[in-house]
């Protein structure tokens, strides 16, 4: 086997040093009757070429975004990733290192995490950020748990504009932990009255902008209402490129920001791995989940970075930890930070403008179709269409014609009476021809 360096002679020598006759003797503590591969009705090993053929054939059965005009979003976005990003994340020293427990020989990871934390804090308008979570949805659930710890209350209010899967993730954990969640009805037009939901029993309000339907929300009044009742405002972002164009959540009064960072540096990957961003105020630092890279000095007084405040974490605090998270999304955070460094302030702002321009152009084009209605008054790079008929069926029909034309709302909200709604996202990756193809496909759909 090409990955196993030991020869039979080596194995024999080693058994001799150990003083046993066979490897089987090393498994002496396991129940003997259960030690057998007889029960494994599985094939033998394959060459690199064979493995490549098998998985290549599976890959070939999928329709990648590169092969079709592509307009899907709903929490995962297709942006162009500069070639240098993937080259750099594949550096052995990044790719094949562990969590930086030995800081003297992990300054590379620790420094980029420190830079990542700084970028995330700046982008979200918050004071501190952690070294990443699994993804946006789990970051959101962790934010709710953190709010419960801070407020000593147990009720979360979820906006009807929150990504339905994020809401489900929060509800799953809360239901299991015996905590209360109030979820508002799907809020297609961002008209819900969240302020009316807040009272002194509410721990936090979770609201997303741009919201699931693409609407932009000003959270300032909501933040004031939360403050009056001692509740925390959790702001969620699923498309971080929007932060290049929009007022950051921190400036609107959010106490915690949970975001999906996939848009920068990370491919669609059929849903994972992605990278959760988590930011908050300095005052809440010690209730934060996850790893934190901090600055310090070494024995020679030189600047250095180290994982810090680990007394919050499971490996020290065990059942009293702020979270059970251990492995996070280090390499995805690296891809994120490299992409953002390549963009810089100027690049990110311009990328955001191009995204918005493309979406505006698409919305204007689609608004002219007789069988489609654009529902949003405001949006960034994604908006909601009302189509005639079942959006899921229309999407299948478009796919058959080679257009990946958006996400039917019913895929995420199957029983909400929203079967005629279609989410459409347009990034810098779309061309004018793509937009024309989508318009033609929608026009021809019925």
């Amino acid at each position, binding site marked *: 086997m090409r990955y196993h360096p030991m020869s039979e002679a080596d194995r024999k020598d080693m058994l001799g040093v150990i003083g*046993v006759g066979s490897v089987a003797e090393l*498994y002496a503590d396991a129940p003997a009757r259960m030690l057998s591969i007889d029960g494994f009705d599985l094939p033998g090993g394959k060459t690199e070429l064979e493995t490549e053929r098998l998985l290549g054939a*599976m890959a070939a059965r999928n329709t990648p*975004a590169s092969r079709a005009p592509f307009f899907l979003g709903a929490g995962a976005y297709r942006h162009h990733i500069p070639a240098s990003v993937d080259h750099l994340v594949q550096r052995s020293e990044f790719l094949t290192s562990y969590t930086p427990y030995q800081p003297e020989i992990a300054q590379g*990871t620790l420094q980029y995490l420190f830079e990542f934390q700084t970028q995330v804090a700046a982008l979200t308008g918050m004071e501190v950020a952690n070294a990443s979570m699994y993804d946006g949805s789990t970051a959101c659930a962790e934010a709710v748990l953190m709010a419960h710890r801070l407020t000593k209350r147990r009720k979360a209010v979820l906006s009807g504009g929150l990504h339905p899967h994020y809401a489900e993730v929060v509800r799953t954990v809360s239901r299991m932990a015996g905590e209360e969640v109030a979820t508002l009805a799907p809020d297609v037009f961002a008209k819900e009255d969240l302020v009316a939901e807040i009272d002194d029993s509410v721990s936090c309000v979770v609201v997303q902008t741009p919201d699931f339907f693409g609407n932009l929300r000003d959270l300032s009044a909501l933040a004031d209402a939360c403050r009056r009742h001692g509740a925390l405002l959790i702001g969620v972002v699923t498309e971080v490129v929007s932060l290049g164009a929009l007022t950051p959540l921190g400036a609107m009064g959010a106490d915690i920001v949970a975001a*999906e960072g996939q848009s920068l540096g990370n491919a669609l990957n059929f849903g994972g791995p992605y990278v959760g961003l988590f930011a908050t105020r300095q005052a809440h630092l010690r209730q934060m989940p996850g790893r934190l890279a901090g600055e*310090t000095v070494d024995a020679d007084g030189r600047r250095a970075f180290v994982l810090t405040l*680990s007394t919050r974490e499971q490996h020290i605090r065990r*059942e009293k930890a702020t979270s059970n998270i251990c492995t996070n999304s280090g390499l995805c955070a690296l891809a994120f930070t490299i992409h953002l*460094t390549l963009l810089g302030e100027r690049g990110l702002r311009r990328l955001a403008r191009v995204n918005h321009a493309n979406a505006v152009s698409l919305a204007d084009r689609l608004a002219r179709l007789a069988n489609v209605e654009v529902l949003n008054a405001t949006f960034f790079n994604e908006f909601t269409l009302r189509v005639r008929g079942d959006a899921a069926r229309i999407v299948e029909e478009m796919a058959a014609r080679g257009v990946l034309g958006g996400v039917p709302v019913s895929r995420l909200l199957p029983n909400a009476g929203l079967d005629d709604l279609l989410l459409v996202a347009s990034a810098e990756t779309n061309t004018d021809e793509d937009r024309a193809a989508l318009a033609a496909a929608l026009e021809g759909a019925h």
Partner: protein
Amino acid sequence: MLDRPTRPAPSIEDRETPATFTGHRGLDHEEPLLFEIGRLDASGVDIEEPAPFPPRLGGLERTEPIGLPGLTEPEAVRHYVRLSRRNYSIDAGLYPLGSCTMKHNPRLNEKLARLDGFADIHPLQPQSTAQGALALMEELSRWLLALTNMSAVALSPKAGAHGELCGLMAIKAAIRARGEEATRNVVLIPASAHGTNPASAALLGFSVRIVPAGEDGVVPAGAVEAALAPDVAAIMLTNPNTCGLFERDIVEIARLVREAGGYFYCDGANFNAIAGVARPGDFGVDAMHINLHKTFSTPHGGGGPGAGPVVFSERLAPYAPVPFLRRDGETLHLVEHTDGTESFGRMTAFHGQMGMFVRALAYILSHGADGLAQASRDAVLSANYVRASLRDTMTQPFGDRVCMHEVLFDDAWLRGTGVTTLDFAKAMIDEGYHPMTVYFPLVAHGAMLIEPTESESKASLDLFIATLRDLAASALAGDRDRFTQAPRLAPRRRLDETLAARKPVLRWSADRA
């Protein structure tokens, strides 16, 4: 065994490196922070400014600067390449972190995960256009179920700790379905467990009851029996355990827990010792997470991403989270909603770590059943070889006995030398090695947990062993400087961790610079 004579120890002065004008030392470059070298108007991405258009941002435009310096591509490449060179990696050397399974990460896996058909597909595109992706998930599931002899698998958990949460939520759902939620709220956990175990249990409102291990380092069935009561929901047991020992009473423990109305959660972090050799389902396990980033070689990436699929016994299978796969003739479907199921719900926005699934399946297919068994046996052989080669010098907390894929030493042998486990670990850095896991598990004093994995050649193990013997001889001979001053040859010497925690600086800011 390689017999390398001890080199004459250079004096401390000889080891000092001369000061340089740049601060760099040969190939070791000091690298400033991005915020010290970047500019707000620099960019490594060319984007054309769009023609003017009426925005639809509803007056929510960002007006203030963000504070994100950029770099052009050559500057960015240099910045990150220089940072990368300050990291140890499995590609560069043996990485014996116990319980972390730092094995070789095959590059074929990276190549395949980057195929457009896997990397450039959207989680919500029509399932008719992603049948190959679903087939890959089905094939991976088939292997995981066969290797564990379990009934169902949840692929969506994002890492080991997320898998623990998944398993415990299924257990809680099952207990709830039995109407015993109010009374069954305790999880039994041995003292040697990973910290994630009690943290996961606590997150769901369980209380933790510690089960003591016996003097031989494993949990005796009698101790479990004594801890069992009608309030016990589950036991969380790592097998092989974090002392590197196979839980000898595991079958009996499973039976006792089941008869007492509880469930058996197995922490699968150490599956690399038994994959292809023994099946957890045969032991009576009800749920177990599998760290694809350990046993199945997906890269650790400096702390993730991981993937923690959970396999379930028949009695927990109905409660598995959504989404899950369902085959309908030639077509595969993802069931994404709980309606009409007993599923406990959803754990993450999409379907799990697809990129990791591709890598893990490439690893599994490359090995085949025989290759996986060989990997496990070689991992166990290597750990025992290290044990047998060091047992005359270093002490083991539970005596010298056969171990699984990792070997646990304590610091009893260092007593009186003035050298601590931490010092010893730091001296390994100067010798070009990443230290083993230290001070874990907590049940061993000054623990040193060594997991060499199957990826090392005998020659590599021999040099590692000779190095540890040389270090041990130094420690016992009283050469304290080699340890207390270590590391001297790394990019940084020991860090002031107290300062970092007392006055946390977690981001760069202009006023401090």
